[in-house]
């Protein structure tokens, strides 16, 4: 027979800890509250211990991890609020609503800090789209769900990534990131301070939907998961739009002491999080909570994850004022309890006390903390072996390049982002399709650049190096847009932490992110951990998604990756090495996922990033693009697409032709400048000792690449573009 604590996902040891906290056996409601709060999703019990690897402070950091979202200063009394969060398991069983409510949840985290949400991003991973109808169904639903929510609420979805790999066949990843803007003096934290202050509830009524979603996120997916559809919530973006506007208006009045969204673990989590951040006690009455269904039990009310609900701590005596403003937006606010000073979370059902626990004991500070066992997986050293000599060189490089450009991972994602309103709020200066999105900050000269990044094949082959590369590439994307990278939010998606080889991946990845963030001075200010991303047969590739923000001091000086004018000079920065390991080329063309991932040299990286920023700042560059998946050849092709401008380049190299075209050596960029600026640019490169090579010039209708004097690639840009743009639509039909 299942023990009561097992039914709520706890171990015997954890149960004993609860008894210790309470000095008695918990009742059913209390046990359920601990069950959801001590799930990995809420307590980070398996991962917390490793977070010390992350740099989380810095002179620009106004709020690090631990709050609803992180905050980074961008100057002029302005700050950016951001966070990424996963909604993987809900999206696996009901893609539209799973993705939609993922977006809804992350938006609430941002406005709970008092910020106006200004942009959404998303990072998606799916299985083998070429051979699975199920994957197509998931892609279609997830994209429509993200669009349905973001478009309706009127926050532009400005950037993101979509990748495919067999390891995601049974477990797709849907990570949503939201970015908001706030003035320093308006930053708000979810504190429940002021004994006697009222606890108010605003938004949708509480139903039985999403029961135990937090614990659902903390188990592996099985065939039964389909039946767990009841754990998936239904999103109402219209309600959220009203909530957002009402909350921002309420914050202006000064009547609100604390604001918290009701997300994972619902009311239970909101009560204990606000209480432990404040004076430490709270008392609420479940009978006062608006309900959608009759006959709901206290436990159902306390752990429901119904969407679009907010939790307010209101200064005593100002409840009517709050109600008036909320009603203007067509919503209702009800008082459900009050702040106390006794450190206890007391739940009543009318006159009857139905739960009484120390508030901190539910919270992550009171939850158990595990130091999991880890073990290097067997594949790790085996897969490092790669015999390049055994790999035949392609006979026709035109064909190979076209094959890469039309592959699921490298083709244009226009089919996806065309469904997202990426222009609403009229601040999107660089739209999806370049290295990073750029937004202007209205009323200032400033802009911000945003990106998400992660190459999970690298992270599988070498989690530490792969994660460091993810951070570095995100920074490169921003730098190519003319933005100085400032901070990171990380979405860490892994398999079960209870399996030592998976936990080793996690541990390595966290270390790699920490190293890179320290090197690049981009602290981690918020994030999310999603474990148990595996099915009975396989775990996902480790996927630590890096969301990054950067600032552009003068928005007129932003830059994009696209070639601009005939005659512009094309320059390659950095060094191309014989590093085909883990490349898209090896995987796609030769079916090999092995080798040593490209080496990252932070010294060179930082030098190049600083150089590009200064060159953009000085107005010397016409375009800048970092070289990543697909190597130099794919990067060149990408630069040609938007304006349908060809290029003629010559490469001199001792390397194999496929290595020079498709190696993914790190710290490389393709930049262009007008011929008049070349002298000045060269001086700057010489001064800063930038390794570079002048490759050729922009122009014509073809992309022509010569290697060692011999023509290797010649493709009509128009044909390349048509195939590259159309590929995704073909995959989906």
């Amino acid at each position, binding site marked *: 027979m299942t023990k009561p604590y097992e039914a709520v996902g706890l171990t015997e040891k954890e149960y004993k800890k609860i008894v210790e906290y309470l000095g008695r056996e918990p009742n059913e409601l209390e046990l359920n509250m601990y069950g959801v709060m001590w799930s990995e999703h809420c307590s980070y019990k398996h991962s917390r211990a490793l977070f010390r690897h992350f740099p989380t402070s810095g002179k620009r950091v106004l709020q690090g991890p631990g709050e609803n979202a992180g905050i980074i200063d961008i100057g002029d009394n302005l700050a950016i609020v951001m966070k990424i969060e996963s909604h993987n398991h809900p999206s696996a069983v009901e893609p539209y609503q799973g993705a939609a409510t993922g977006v809804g949840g992350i938006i609430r985290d941002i406005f709970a800090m008092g910020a106006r949400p200004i942009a959404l991003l998303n990072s998606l991973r799916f299985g083998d789209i070429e051979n699975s109808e199920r994957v197509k169904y998931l892609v279609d639903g997830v994209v429509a769900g993200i669009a349905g929510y973001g478009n309706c609420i009127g926050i532009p979805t400005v950037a993101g990534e979509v990748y495919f790999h067999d390891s995601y066949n049974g477990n797709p990843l849907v990570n949503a990131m939201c970015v908001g803007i706030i003035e320093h003096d308006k930053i708000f934290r979810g504190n429940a301070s002021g004994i006697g202050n009222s606890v108010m509830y605003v938004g949708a009524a509480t139903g039985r939907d999403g029961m135990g979603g937090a614990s659902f996120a903390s188990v592996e997916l099985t065939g039964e998961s389909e039946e767990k559809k009841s754990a998936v919530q239904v999103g109402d973006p219209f309600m959220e*739009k009203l909530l957002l506007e009402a909350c921002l208006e309420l914050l202006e009045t000064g009547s609100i002491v604390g604001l918290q969204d009701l997300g994972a673990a619902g009311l239970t989590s909101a009560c204990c999080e606000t209480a432990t951040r404040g004076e430490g006690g709270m008392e609420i009455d479940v009978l006062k909570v608006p309900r959608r269904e009759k006959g709901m039990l206290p436990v159902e009310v306390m752990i429901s994850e119904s969407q679009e609900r907010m939790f307010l701590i209101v200064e005593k005596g100002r409840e009517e004022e709050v109600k008036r403003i909320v009603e203007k937006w067509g919503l209702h606010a009800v008082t459900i309890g009050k702040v106390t000073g006794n450190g206890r979370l007391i739940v009543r059902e009318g006159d009857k006390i139905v739960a009484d626990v120390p508030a901190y004991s539910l919270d992550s500070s009171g939850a158990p903390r595990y130091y999991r066992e880890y073990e290097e997986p067997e594949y790790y050293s085996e897969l490092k072996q790669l015999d390049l000599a055994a790999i035949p060189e392609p006979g026709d490089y035109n064909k190979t390049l076209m094959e890469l450009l039309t592959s699921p991972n490298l083709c244009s994602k226009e089919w996806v982002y065309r*469904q997202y309103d990426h*222009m609403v*709020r009229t601040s*999107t200066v660089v739209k999806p399709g370049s290295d990073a999105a750029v937004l202007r900050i209205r009323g200032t000269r400033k802009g911000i650049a945003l990106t998400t990044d992660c190459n999970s094949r690298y992270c599988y082959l070498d989690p530490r190096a792969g994660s460091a590369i993810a951070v570095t590439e995100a920074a490169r994307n921003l730098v190519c847009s003319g933005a100085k990278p400032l901070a990171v939010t990380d979405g860490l998606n892994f398999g079960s932490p209870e399996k030592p080889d998976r936990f080793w991946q996690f541990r390595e990845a966290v270390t790699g992110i920490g190293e890179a963030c320290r090197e690049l001075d981009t602290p981690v200010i918020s994030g999310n951990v999603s474990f148990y991303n595996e099915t009975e047969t396989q775990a996902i590739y480790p996927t630590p998604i890096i969301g990054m923000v950067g600032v552009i001091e003068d928005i007129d000086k932003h830059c994009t990756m696209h070639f601009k004018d005939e005659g512009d000079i094309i320059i390659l920065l950095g060094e191309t090495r014989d590093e085909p390991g883990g490349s898209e080329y090896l995987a796609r063309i030769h079916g090999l996922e092995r080798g040593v991932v490209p080496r990252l040299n932070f010294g060179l990286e930082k030098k190049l990033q600083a150089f590009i920023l200064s060159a953009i700042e000085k107005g010397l560059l016409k375009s800048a693009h970092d070289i990543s998946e697909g190597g130099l050849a794919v990067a060149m092709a990408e630069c040609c697409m938007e304006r349908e401008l060809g290029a003629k380049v010559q490469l001199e190299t001792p390397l194999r032709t496929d290595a020079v075209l498709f190696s993914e050596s790190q710290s490389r960029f393709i930049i262009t400048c007008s011929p008049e600026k070349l002298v000045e640019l060269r001086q700057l490169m010489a001064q800063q000792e930038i390794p570079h090579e002048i490759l050729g010039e922009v122009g014509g209708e073809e992309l022509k690449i010569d290697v060692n004097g011999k023509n290797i690639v010649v493709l009509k840009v128009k044909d390349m573009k048509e195939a590259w743009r159309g590929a995704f639509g073909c995959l989906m039909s």
Partner: protein
Amino acid sequence: MKFGVIVFPGSNCDIDCFHAVKDALGHEVEYIWHDTEELDGFDCIILPGGFSYGDYLRCGAVARFARIMDAVRTHAAAGKLVIGICNGFQILTEAGLLPGALVRNKNLKFICDTVPLRVETTDTPFTSLYKKGEIINIPIAHGEGNYLVDEDTLKKMKENGQIVFTYVDNPNGSMENIAGVCNEQKNVLGMMPHPERACEEILGNTDGLRLFESIIAAVESESVISAQAVKNRHTGTRRKSAMETSRSKPIAFTQKEELLHD
């Protein structure tokens, strides 16, 4: 010259319209809350894009009952200017201020893109500064922009020059590639594309500016209230209410026994 931007619950392009007028054109503009009763002092009313009332039931179906809509009708009947953009267009058709209806895009997907439009007529207060036949690039962002109207009305609209913008490459299945239409009096315009998103260099597109400049020119030359408009003051194209409906055949109301049920 003063613009008013109506804010319905769920409007989300209200701020874009506001800033286009204020920042890009330097004209006076105010937000108008949906339960306001009067529109005195406004020369041009903008019904912005977004998802009024969540677009639940049908896009614009609930917004047409907002208190402000009576004032919008009065404003339009007086020959003053009204422009509905995207969701605003949907609201105007639901309210009967413009003919036709907007249904789901043919591909069933939301489409956000910048698309070429042909200016079909410059004989309106909204397009006088464009050239007839000119191609302009304007962003679209909608899931239900597929314009439909019955053949008789379409014929009349064509004769009367009420087709204002058409798509060069039809993105959504719209009848006759229609992107924007006006009423008979030409003082009410509805369009799915978003001119307010194309008013600033920094956004890479200024093709929408002349639409607003045309409005300003029209109001400032006081040529808006044409004799025709005044004459037609109380006979606008508002859809008849249920009580007024007269139909040649019985409405599609079926008795209980004819219905599909056990």
